[in-house]
């Protein structure tokens, strides 16, 4: 079984990138997929997102709807943005630099949108 790692380094609501990556990751759930949040991508891990004023889908809802999606957040990126004191979505696992890299290397494919 091939495994895929979706590397996401864009902020969730600035463009459609994250929405696209999330949906792509979800259709791969059965084949072993990891969504890796990196740099500005880690904002997706924050709990309590409200996208109503923007009129776009709430991306946190998608994470909640698919608790079996493996989501890793790069902890140094969270730290650099001062987000370690914020509530995060329960299904997100925090990983350090090395483990993040290991997860990428262990996957057969890495997709960067």
């Amino acid at each position, binding site marked *: *079984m091939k495994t895929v790692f979706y590397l996401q380094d864009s902020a969730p609501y600035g463009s459609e990138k994250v929405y696209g990556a999330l949906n792509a990751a*979800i*259709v791969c*759930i*059965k*084949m072993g997929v990891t969504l890796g949040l990196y740099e500005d991508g880690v904002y997706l891990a924050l*709990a309590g997102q409200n996208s109503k004023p923007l009129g776009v*889908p*709430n991306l946190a*809802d*998608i994470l*909640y*709807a698919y*608790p079996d999606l493996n989501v890793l957040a790069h*902890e140094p990126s*969270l730290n650099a943005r001062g987000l*370690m*004191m*914020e*509530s*995060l979505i*329960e*299904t*997100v*696992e*925090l*990983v*350090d*630099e*090395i*483990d993040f890299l290991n997860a990428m290397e262990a996957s057969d494919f890495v997709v960067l949108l």
Partner: protein
Amino acid sequence: MSGSPADVKLVGNAMANATRRKIMAMLIENNRNKEEIEKAVGASMLDYHIQMLQQAGLIEQKESTLVLTDFGKNFTETRAEKPVEVKKNLTGTKPIDIVEIRQLLPCIADKTKFRIIARMEPSLGGALKLLEPLFPRARYSEKINALIIQKGNVLLTIYSTGNVTMTMIKNQEEATQILEDIRRAVNDAIVKGITPVPREKVKVDHNEIYEYLPKTNCQICGEQSCYSFAIKLVSRDTELAKCTPLLDAKYSTNLEHLQAIMEYL
């Protein structure tokens, strides 16, 4: 640690990392020096992880030894992986309301069914685990702090933060009905106390598993038939992952159900 919301978040985020959970598990057994921990979890970023645990007030360094703080001991005794305050009874738990049904996403397996995301308020937090006996088929997941309830084909996940997700829902009315049933059951329990319901088929038999297998007798799993595969699954002589046809999109709902059933074995 004062237990303020900021501290709670700090602890939660400190424990949302596998390496740090491993360090905590080692310290529960015994006080350790850094070299011992390094041997078990590796040297990379060890200082950083130790610093995170210290900041959260879970561990402290006494000379060259790392020990759990009183707060750390208390935290691990509750065996909670996340900082949800574990409750012993429902005293003080407020009745819940369904405040929002937020989004309808089509199910991958069956486009005529939906995934629903709803919100219950106030969130149940640590009381959620106590509600497990209220439902014939429910289990509490420590990993994601959520109560997973099976109702027929519908899988319902209630998070301690108040979010609720449901799969295989026919329409919004069905979702509302199920949520209303849950709301009533929970609120009754808050008023009258928890009356455990009889567990529904706690002992799963092979016939039930067979119902959800592809029934193609393809022998990919190495067994003569799907039926014998089901029997071996019950006796734990094989594992579900060996049935690779289940990974096909058309069986994704079956797989989801089998995974839920296997929890009861």
